[in-house]
């Protein structure tokens, strides 16, 4: 590719706003979090008066404190279990709907595509509000229906169900967008790749499994990756549901623990250490996943 090869300051000027913002709001916060995670407050004397509280190096103390916090491991396991529910369900539904739309054997395609995409316009907080009300036994239509046929349904916000209640909100909000992504990939497959199989008598299901899904595998890999990253950061849904349920603790997810440590306990050092751990874990998981599937995630040609 031929570029504008003159010696000029222009590219740096074009990049300047992005680089300044990148430095100030991405690089600096990461660096500052890493720095804080290695610091602690040293209290001298009674801790009263100016200068009696000083910041000193803490080594890896905050990390051991964070990792051995009795509430940390349960929150990590909870988010792990949550991810195992959300990601396969959401992507499975998205793939199924995309394949059904692509097969073109229905007259409700446009309506269904629009309806299923709609929740993407609803932010997680509002989605959690809506579902939160629908989970209340006095509001829920599902409870009415089940009681009508003589079944007493469990409380969706009780401790054994709340994980699925939160997972449902994420599935509801994310399926449509992923469906559109996969559908676009499906529509880009040239028809002649499967017309021959159809003439040979292959069914729609065989064509989907043997031809379409393998071709759109790169799209599946990327939706999987971005869904995992989003799952690890779950915060808005449980925070919004908290007023409606006493089963969601202040450390229900790792990010909620970061928030509590930083702003409720004013322990920014523990919060910083936990943030660094979450960021590192996210990076390892996503990088490891890309290595595992052997995918070049981002095109670097040109």
């Amino acid at each position, binding site marked *: 590719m031929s570029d504008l090869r003159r010696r000029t300051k222009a590219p740096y000027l074009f990049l300047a706003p*992005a680089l300044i913002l990148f430095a100030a709001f991405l690089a600096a916060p990461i660096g500052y979090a890493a720095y804080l995670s290695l610091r602690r407050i040293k209290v001298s004397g009674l801790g009263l008066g100016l200068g009696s509280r000083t910041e000193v190096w803490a080594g890896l103390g905050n990390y051991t404190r964070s990792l051995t916090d009795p509430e940390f491991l349960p929150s990590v396991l909870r988010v792990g279990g949550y991810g195992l529910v959300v990601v396969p369900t959401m992507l499975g539904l998205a793939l199924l709907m995309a394949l059904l739309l692509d097969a073109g054997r229905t007259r409700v395609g446009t309506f269904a595509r629009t309806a299923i995409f709609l929740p993407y316009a609803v932010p997680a907080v509002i989605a959690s509000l809506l579902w939160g009300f629908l989970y209340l036994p006095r509001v829920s239509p599902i409870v009415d229906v089940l009681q009508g046929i003589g079944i007493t349904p469990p409380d969706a916000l009780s401790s054994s169900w709340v994980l699925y209640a939160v997972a449902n909100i994420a599935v509801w909000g994310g399926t449509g967008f992923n469906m559109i992504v996969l559908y676009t990939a499906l529509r880009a497959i040239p028809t002649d790749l499967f017309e021959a199989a159809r003439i040979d008598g292959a069914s729609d299901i065989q064509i989907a499994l043997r031809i379409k899904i393998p071709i759109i595998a790169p799209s599946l890999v990327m939706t999987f990756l971005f869904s995992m990253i989003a799952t690890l*950061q779950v915060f808005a849904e449980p925070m919004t549901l908290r007023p409606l349920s006493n089963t969601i603790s202040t450390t229900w997810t790792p990010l909620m623990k970061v928030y509590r440590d930083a702003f409720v306990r004013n322990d920014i050092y523990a919060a910083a250490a936990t*943030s660094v751990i979450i960021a590192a874990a996210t990076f390892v998981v996503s990088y490891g996943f890309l290595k595992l599937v052997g995918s070049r995630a981002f095109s670097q040609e040109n």
Partner: protein
Amino acid sequence: MAVSTVPALPATARPATPPAPPHRRTSPTATVLLLLGAAYCLLPVLWVLIASSKSASELFSTFTFTPSTHLFDNIGYLTEYRDGLYWRWMANTVVYAGVGAAASTLVSAMAGFALARYTFRGKSLIFNLVLAGVLVPGVILAVPQYLLLAKVGMTNTYWAVLLPSMISPYGIYLARIFAAATVPTEVLEAARIDGAGDWRTFARVALPMMRGGLVTVFLFQFVAIWNNYMLPFIMLGDDRLFPVTVGLSGLLNQGATQPAMYTAVVTGAMLSVVPLVALFLALQRYWRVDISAGAVKA
């Protein structure tokens, strides 16, 4: 969910809505499954439309999908609540998501254009930084961003939410792809021979050519800001600066002691969802996203 992907350029192999070919039968199973999916997705939206017409006592007593007649009472109550605080939240949301996304799109377009159409020292380093930035989970930055902005006394201002929203590594990555695909080098050379400077070439030649892709960058960033709850939640203490998401979740907290607040929350949710849903449906064609980056090669 902050899920992001690579939007496809308009060229697709087949039309977006395939007419069912006459020689292929329609499948009842497919229709039923798609309608079930649609019903699941519409259920909460339908509910909020109906529930916002119920009075506080009806909300928890009448059947879920029985509409009532109190919609305008509810809107009136919400409007009067603390001198129209709710509408201020709506206006704030437009400022954060609209201005933030517009600024982010311009920043991304400039950076993407430079990365796609210039050769310069440090180019691959910068590009790799951008790629690494895409994988940084943004929400984790909120606490250190707050602490740093607190040092310069900028928390609890509009800037505290706007400035961090203006940088989007993913937007830069997309803009670079769009610039490489839609702005031919020959056109830039021609503009240069005609005596146009670098900035003029970018603003008058490249920017209009990238317009279609930049709408997509704008929409992605708009949704990302509108969806980001943690950043404004942490940065803002004054509830007059809240976006509608943070405001409504605060109202829900009050509902525990003042049940009348629940009606306000439901009505507020309805009023905030309807314009956005309308906007999305109107702009649906820009959401043709193709995630496999190879498909958008220049």
